[in-house]
């Protein structure tokens, strides 16, 4: 009787777990474990050094900004602590404006559900 009760409880737990787990494509990464990479080009290393301390490349890859907007964004980030040498500032702005201008296309990375 006791054994049957244990088995019943185990079966119910399994059922509950099966109901809870969402279906998803197991080849997808867990959210927050894979990040985009910046395209090759002059200014890439300085941009990585300036930006990666606080956020992944994904945040850059989705932007579609004019050079004026990139200048404002880079200056804001420098005020907020991004490490960019004076000589590198125009290099970083030019790199971002060239690669992530108004015509940029971005497809977000698909991931598993949160927590999986």
């Amino acid at each position, binding site marked *: 009787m006791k054994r049957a009760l244990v088995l019943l409880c185990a079966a119910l737990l399994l059922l509950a777990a099966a109901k809870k787990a969402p279906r998803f494509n197991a080849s997808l990464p867990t959210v*927050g474990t894979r990040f985009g990479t910046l395209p090759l080009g002059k200014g890439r290393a300085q941009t990585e050094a300036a930006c990666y301390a606080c956020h992944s490349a994904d945040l850059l890859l989705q932007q579609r900004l004019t050079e004026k907007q990139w200048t404002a964004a880079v200056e804001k980030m420098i005020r907020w602590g991004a490490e960019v040498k004076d000589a590198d500032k125009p290099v970083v702005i030019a790199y971002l404006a060239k690669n992530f201008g108004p015509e940029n296309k971005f497809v977000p*990375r698909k*991931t598993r559900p*949160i927590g999986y």
Partner: protein
Amino acid sequence: MLQMNGYAVNAETPLELLTDYLTPNELFFVRSHWIPRTPNLSRWRLTVDGEVKTPVSLSLADLRKLPVTEVTCVLQCAGNGRALYTPVLPGVQWRYGAVGNARWRGVRVRDVLQLAGVKDSAKHLHLFGSDDPPRKVPPFHRSVELAKAMDDAILAYEMNGVKLPAEHGAPLRLVVPGWAGDHWMKWLVRLSPQAESQRGFYMETAYRYPLQPGAAGVAFKPEEMSPVTELFVKSNVTTAPKKAKAGTTYDIRGFAFSGAPDIAKVEVSDDDGATWNEAQLDARHSPYAWRLWSYRWTPRAAGTARVMVRATDSRDRVQPRDATWNQSGYLYNAWHTVDIEVTA
């Protein structure tokens, strides 16, 4: 999910998955300003200080002794839809899925504040979370009008029947029914009623919306804007056929919500808004929750059919054809349109 930033994690829900009345936690969008520090629950306390008679420090066990309350309502990021504005704006390029509807369980803010005794001088509730920004980035310090907080805001420790997940602010977050997500402070550690509103970047520069519409692309001055508070009336299509046959009937579905407590109607048009037909609203509802809706659509002729949806809330506010451009890309709520290829 659709990852918008790897760290701090920002991810939106694919729109076609937002079909449930309660958005499952694992599909609920995540918006994080900084990488949170997971608090040690045995040491975690919520401090209430400021314009109060007796400052208090509460553990989770203390909070759980207070009367339990539950609300089902929409949480939408203020920037949901930012990517849809023209001219384009910097920031996380949210499209449609930084929104969800959940059941939040916890305690009323007013019950917690009453333990400390709020002085009459207090008009704003300052909110502090445990997440620290890196470098010289301004802290995400916010305040919410005390009247709203005392009216219906709750401190939630559960989401959809389970312990509040870490990415949603465990152990405690603020829930402000009908108001945009910037008020829904996560990882709460301190509440402080004050006479004045909170200062700083995230009150004085960010999360502000124009008082009057202006020209798209022309930035508003600070005095031309006020803080983002209530959500705007909005509806989206989650389910529609990609291809259809003229004369055949199809189900089109979606959700609608507002900063008003309810949605009065949802309408669908397939002639560029010249005529509208009412969709059927799902019976499930709670103040500030979304309404699921469905519509039986029969395309008349071959070609590309553009189906559009608009909602009207219980305060008679109608979702507009175009959203008001603003320099931070907040509260996008233009008619949602989907194109369907119709064959004869």
